[in-house]
């Protein structure tokens, strides 16, 4: 039962990451691409974390996996905001 859950969680995570990368590749504007890059650090990361926790539970490895995904989830919005500002500046310079 645990193996099936892990397989499903990992398959969903990989599919969602592929969708996010497809968004980064094919969306028309840079802000749209940034939106998809941000999505890559949210739902798929938690799916991988859930799969790891199915195996590790709350052992040392499980806690470190929680720390890695928490860092990704809480720090990425700061990075996205900073990148969005840079995009706005670059596009303002290009249009002027």
């Amino acid at each position: 039962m645990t193996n099936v859950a892990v397989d499903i969680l990992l398959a969903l995570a990989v599919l969602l990451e592929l969708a996010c990368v497809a968004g980064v590749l094919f969306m028309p504007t840079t802000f749209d691409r940034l939106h998809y890059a941000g999505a890559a650090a949210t739902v798929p990361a938690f799916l991988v974390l859930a799969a790891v926790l199915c195996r590790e539970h709350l052992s040392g490895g499980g806690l470190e996996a929680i720390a890695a995904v928490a860092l990704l989830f809480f720090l990425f919005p700061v990075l996205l905001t900073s990148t969005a500002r840079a995009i706005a500046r670059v596009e303002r310079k290009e249009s002027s």
Partner: protein
Amino acid sequence: MNAFVWAAIGLLVPFFPLLAVAVWRRPIDGLVALECAGALLVLVLLCLAEGFHRSFEYAVAIVAALMTWIGGLVFARFLGRWL
């Protein structure tokens, strides 16, 4: 090979199109691709740590998450100011 190793391989595949974006498109689009690749890298490292049962590799994933953040901030600052 278990499910985690297969997932890591599946997550490694999108690095190539992201590399193409970083090489061929504008630098600011490359930064977006770099950030997406950073998020992917953390997940790949988590999958490999669990897949090979090496607990120290979880620490590598934590460091990768931090370095992705710091590197992305530096590049965003640089590109916003000087491009």
